[in-house]
């Protein structure tokens, strides 16, 4: 039983990370119907900026005196960096292809994904980059279940980010513009909503969430790698499809489910196949319920 609860904690941690990444996929897909392959690389870039900032501060000795300030700074800088990256990406690779065929857009996204992951390899090397250890190690025990500080931090942090996102999308003018552009780009353009600006905003928000997830993964697992965005990227996309693509709550839920399934499958079935289960879920969802759990109507006219 203790193992079971332990797995739930682990699953929640992993699930919140997937959910954060999945949100970026689902928002971009909702607004321009593009599987943004480079999203996984944005997530990896966030992880890299986190490690760069933290080791910079550790070497300067700042990390020992103000650990929480340092952590905050790492998150904020990673988010800013990824926002810049996402804007560049959108301007260079996606905006010129507005109105082109979907295949061209998809290939362009894939090209950027390959370019970014290999670019990171060239800049930062092939090997894992280790995060500095500081408050990652602590933890406490509740009824035989060990909960590390890191896990609490990740879960609370992602929940806060998701609440923030929900407030943003539902309460602000820009959020309203995003929703209306996702529903009908032409109509909302006629009503005076700047489509390009809205799309860039969407990319930036997705990138900010992915950056946070990247730093969290780095802190949680202790290291980052240039190709670390690839597999979590596919899994997060599976989560987005599972939740119903274009649906924010669905993406959060889907991320949690994928994380849980992965942890439980690894714990009880076969750990070496843990990466396979997300894909199996994806294929099963497409077989039986292509619109996902929280799926809204996805009809062919939006294609």
């Amino acid at each position, binding site marked *: 039983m203790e193992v079971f609860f332990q797995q739930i904690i682990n699953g929640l941690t992993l699930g919140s990370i997937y959910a954060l990444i999945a949100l970026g996929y689902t928002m971009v897909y909702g607004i321009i119907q593009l599987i943004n392959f480079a999203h996984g690389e944005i997530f990896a870039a966030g992880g890299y900026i986190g490690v760069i900032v933290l080791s910079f501060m550790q070497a300067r000795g700042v990390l020992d005196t103000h650990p929480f300030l340092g952590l905050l700074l790492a998150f904020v800088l990673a988010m800013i960096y990824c926002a810049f990256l996402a804007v560049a990406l959108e301007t260079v690779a996606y905006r010129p292809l507005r109105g082109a065929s979907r295949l*061209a857009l998809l290939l362009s996204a894939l*090209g950027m994904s390959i370019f970014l992951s290999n670019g990171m390899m060239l800049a930062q090397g092939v090997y894992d980059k280790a995060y500095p250890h500081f408050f990652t190690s602590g933890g406490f025990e509740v009824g035989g279940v060990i909960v590390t500080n890191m896990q609490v931090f990740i879960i609370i942090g992602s929940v806060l980010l998701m609440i923030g996102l929900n407030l943003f999308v539902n309460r602000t003018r820009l959020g309203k513009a995003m929703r209306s552009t996702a529903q009908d780009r032409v109509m909302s353009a006629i009503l005076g909503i700047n489509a390009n600006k809205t799309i860039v905003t969407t990319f930036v928000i997705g990138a900010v969430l992915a950056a946070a997830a990247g730093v969290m993964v780095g802190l949680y697992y202790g290291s980052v790698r240039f190709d670390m965005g690839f597999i979590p990227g596919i899994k997060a996309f599976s989560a987005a499809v599972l939740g119903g693509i274009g649906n924010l709550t669905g993406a959060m839920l889907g991320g949690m489910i994928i994380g849980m399934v992965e942890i439980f499958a690894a714990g009880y079935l076969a750990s070496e196949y843990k990466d396979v289960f997300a894909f199996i879920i994806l294929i099963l969802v497409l077989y039986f319920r292509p619109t996902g759990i929280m799926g809204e109507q996805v009809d062919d006219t939006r294609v």
Partner: protein
Amino acid sequence: MKFVIVLIWAFILLFPMLGIEGGRFVWDRVLKVMAVITAAGMLVLIYHYFLKGLSFRPKTFDASTKHRPPRKLLIGLGVAGVLALPWIADNYTRDIAINVLIYISLGLGLNIVIGLAGLLDLGYIAFYAVGAYTYALLNTNFGVPFWLALPVGCVISAGVGGFIGYPTLKMRGDYLAIVTLGFGEIIRIVLNNWDSVTKGPNGILGIKAPGLFYPVVENGSIEFAHLYLKNLIWLYYLILAIAVLIMLAVYRLNTSRIGRAWMAVREDETAAELTGIHTTRMKLYAYMLGAIFAGFAGAFFAAKVRYVNPSSFIFLESALVLCIVVLGGMGSIRGIIIGAVAIIVLPEMFRGLALYRMAAFGGAMTAMMVFRPEGLLPAKRKAQEVEMERKIADTP
């Protein structure tokens, strides 16, 4: 002004990645890369302002045909060159030539899926793996010869393709991309972990080369002697035959009823459905046919290297084949041949720059989509379409 913004932007993106090492700032790498970007940007600007009026593309083709040597002669020379290649080249060149032919076969197979039917398959290498492992397992466990394993491998590849394709092809096109991406990973993970059958990451050793029976007249009676085609020359001719076979098949399919149906599906699925094309079935055909050709190439690969392991079937390989198809020009056989030669041979020539290879391919892929979506040597019909679209777009 725009240029300055681009430079600042590039600096913001590059500096954290290149310029901070441990606790200090390192400037030289950042400045080097920035210098390259500035120079490239300057070139683009110069081109933009001064040379835009000049056109590098020949306007028409028909006028220049008179001055060219006759087409038949060129083709004859080409065929003779390809046939003679293994006799005049050394083993290294032969090996590269064989690789190019393998990738041409793969590219042609993927071309059916992407270029003709317009479906993005990102796990294409999985079928290559299925073909390779089918032959490897059948041969090492049951001693099945190459020629028998080839059709079996194709059937299994097609079956797997149908299994994966059926649920996804009913959906919108871009789900296929992610499902195939996931599927490619599944295959690799399974090959890596299913130790009892695939021997895991160690791979399968001791695969026999393809054999050939040839008649020998001995003491008045005819006997059949057996010869293993281990020699690179023989293997070259074998893969050449496979590639030519696939080429002919693709060529014939292009203008066939099925081929036209694929193109209709690619251009507008709803309209195609309304004209009476069974779109799901057509897409499934394309997908399975692509899988079959990859299975062919895979079986040959196993027979050539006589060793398979999962690391030959990573995502980068799928991306490489995709690059061949995209760079060469989707839907065009000539384009794919050029693409395969470029993508396999160029890195061999610039060994020192091997690290930059994939980054360059990725960048080239995006640049291609933005600037010249029809590819280097586009299929004629596709080129006309693109030209048409441009004209429509240009008319005010």
